[in-house]
């Protein structure tokens, strides 16, 4: 049998494009979004073969596959824009823990299924809104990516919505776990909407939208689902921050070590 090609399943989004020019603000922003998708995808990979049903193994792997696809597109573009010419793999496998700029939410350990559902709920509602707004930015590659990614995360949101309601209204135990899951992830949601000087510059010039104005809509939508689940959105508490500056949780080191382990064991390898 003749054997040559790769699977189309592995095709990344067609974001990479545009001339390689140094654009530090945009590069930094896309790197952050790419790190979010990569780290969350990595966490979901840890579920596969361990999910409550085989259907869920399938659903979670599908979501992980989408997220890794988003990460590949975003990291590739970031590497072109930051002037270093680094590839998606250089960025994923060649940086130290402190150089990753994902929000802390995405690196939280999976916990039980309810914690994972809660994390998916808050992230996917955010991602639907943010990627949706990217779809309107003037850069055609970025807009195209935003439109496609928004369509995919809409399915992730549907999945999270359904499980939030199912667990919230299922049994006493599942409702308790779902409530605990929401409380676990809630303090980590504010970071999704943070903006810094660079992002404010990008937003002011109309090149890329800021996530900050989306927070209210996000809260309304998440609240609607949580209410439907018979639960309440956790009240104001402390808010975690630091991920965007590379200040991560202690659990992050092992996650990155695992991600990079094979590649680091074989310096100079080709894969």
């Amino acid at each position, binding site marked *: 049998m003749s*054997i040559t090609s790769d699977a189309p399943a592995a095709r990344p989004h067609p974001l990479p494009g545009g001339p390689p020019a140094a654009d530090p603000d945009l590069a930094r922003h896309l790197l952050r979004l790419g790190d979010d998708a990569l780290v969350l995808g990595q966490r979901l990979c840890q579920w596969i073969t361990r999910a409550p049903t085989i259907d869920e193994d399938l659903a979670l792997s599908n979501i992980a596959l989408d997220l890794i696809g988003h990460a590949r597109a975003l990291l590739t573009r970031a590497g072109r824009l930051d002037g270093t010419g680094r590839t998606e793999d250089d960025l994923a496998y060649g940086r130290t823990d402190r150089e990753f700029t994902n929000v802390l939410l995405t690196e939280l350990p999976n916990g039980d299924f309810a914690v994972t559902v809660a994390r998916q709920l808050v992230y996917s509602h955010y991602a639907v809104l943010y990627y949706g707004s990217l779809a309107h930015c003037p850069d055609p590659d970025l807009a195209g990516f935003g439109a496609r990614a928004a369509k995919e995360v809409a399915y992730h949101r549907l999945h999270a919505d359904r499980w939030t309601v199912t667990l919230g209204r299922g049994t006493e135990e599942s409702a308790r776990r779902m409530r605990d899951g929401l409380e676990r992830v809630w303090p980590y949601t504010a970071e999704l909407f943070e903006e810094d000087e660079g992002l404010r510059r990008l937003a002011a010039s109309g090149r890329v939208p800021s996530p900050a104005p989306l927070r209210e809509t996000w809260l309304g939508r998440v609240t609607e689902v949580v209410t439907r689940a018979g639960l309440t959105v956790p009240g104001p508490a402390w808010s975690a921050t630091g991920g965007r500056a590379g200040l991560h949780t202690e659990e992050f080191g092992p996650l990155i070590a695992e991600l990079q382990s094979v590649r680091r064991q074989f310096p100079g390898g080709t894969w």
Partner: protein
Amino acid sequence: MTAPTTTSAADEGDLLAHFDALIAAGETIEPRDWMPDGYRRMLVRQIAQHAHSEIIGMQPEGAWLTRAPSLHRKSVLIAKVQDEAGHGLYLYSAAETLGVDRADLLDALHRGQQRASATFNHPALTWADTGAIAWLTDGAAVINQAPLCRTSYGPYARAMRRVCQEEAFHVRQGYDLMRALCEGTPEQKAMAQDAVDRWWLPAVALMFGPPDTEAGGADVRTAALGAQVSRRAMAWGVKRHTNDELRQRFVDSCVPQAERLGLVLPDPAIRWNEERGHYDFTPVDWDTYRRALGEDTHWARQRIAHRRAAHEDGAWVREAASAYAATASAYAAATHAASAYAPAEDAPRGDDA
């Protein structure tokens, strides 16, 4: 799903004659058709084993998802493991047309009453193992399963057609992964060779089942026994070829591929036999087969323990889903939406003992 219990012996004779005529004419048997109990039992056993093998087979590769050395390889591997889950579900559905329940089949797997392919009683120790599994084990599965696309039981044949298409893809991906390692550093190539050294025997022995011809290496008595089982499966159109015939086909396809990769298959007896028009190889006799089984070893236990742990940890989730389904009519709509999102079902493997 089965013949009425009041069927008289005479009626049963007619039914059997009709069944035999369908098989002889190459027609498929469908769920509503009458079928001999032995045929039904053989199918349930074989389809369940395929399904279990897909589910258990997710583990050795699934363990490397978090360590895949490039994002491209990570995507390919996620898609493959996802395919395996889909194939498992698809095959469980085919088994359900024979009047068994998916949950009962999974329970039988968890209790050790039904088995998955013993191929996965072996550990995936390095990244190259994911390539060797896809190239060799899935390659064996494709050869083993291609004839099942024409097996006599309709739902099984249709399931296998979808499965085989995707399996062929996995084999190409596995080969491509191995090729990248072989073209890489000496350390990478050594990792690839080491994986082939360990996965060759599980593939060539276990993926095809025990020897069932004397020429295949069985002694006269066991060959007769194996041949008897194979003959019955072939008479019913469940199987189309002997285990040893398919094994030969696998060796014939692998040897040139290994040569192109620059890898050595760990069998010094492999050489081209001009007279036979096939590669000779060390016959898989019963001793070799039993040795390869790896039954009741650390990994055989570990695979089932992993499966059971996932099942038990998820019990509260499944209970919640049942409770919610029982009380909320809205659930139907939500499930419908979520299943629209679930990807297409996909591909298995298994030994056809």
